């Protein structure tokens, strides 16, 4: 296991970074949509 980890360090870093990045993007897209919905509501009122 430790050999596998030491040989593939860069790819493990890549996978962890990608997970974080995908999380940030999904959060941002959802937040963006929610705010758009709220703005629509205010326009209707």
């Amino acid at each position, binding site marked *: 296991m430790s050999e596998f980890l030491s040989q593939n360090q860069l790819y493990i870093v*890549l996978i962890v970074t990608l997970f974080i*990045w995908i999380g940030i993007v999904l959060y941002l897209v959802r937040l963006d949509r929610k*705010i758009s919905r709220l703005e629509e509501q205010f326009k209707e009122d």
Partner: protein
Amino acid sequence: MNSLKVLSIILITFTIFAGITVPMVPQPQSIFEFPDIPGLGETARIIFFHVPAAWVSVLGFLISLYFGFKYLRTKEYNYDIKSVSAAGLGMLFCVLAMVTGSLWAKFAWGSFWNWDPRETSIFILLLIYGAYFALRSALGSDEIRARLSAVYAILAGLTAPFFIFIMPRVIGGLHPGAEGDSSGSIPIAQLQMPLNMYVVFFTGLVGFTLLFIWLLNVRIRAVSVEYQLLIKDQ
């Protein structure tokens, strides 16, 4: 705006893939190899993420200055919202630049924090903007808060380029680009980067800038909605 969001996702994803996985070899033969910088090794990859974060933080502070100025001229509350949103994001990226730089310093210089001029200047910058948010939260009246924080945003924004670009270059230090550094005191630290590193570096820079615009847009809209809700409740 939507194409801008997609573009920022694509550019940063490319930077993550290329910046992390392209191998570093002593004598690069193809465009899919980066040169190994003696003494830095794999830690040199930080340049693709740390420098864009620092750049975006200065951008945030300057945008905060600009909208503070606009607020003082027009007295429109919208500009106060824009100014504080930009300052908040500038602060966020400033912390990111500091944390990534500190992690890098552990491996390149041997300690997380050793008061290098660069570390000292970013610390002072964080204190200045910490005081900005303390000032805002201490004032009750909307109008006074907006006016005072606009003045403070202008003063603080003027010091930001000084602390990021000038002070660390005038005083000798360990950070690339410090006074006496043979690689030259140019804003972008290592000018001897080969072309392929340049491409990844500038892709990251543009990607981070676009991401910042997106974040700023979301933040301004969120604060505006919050403000409208407050008015409605009263």
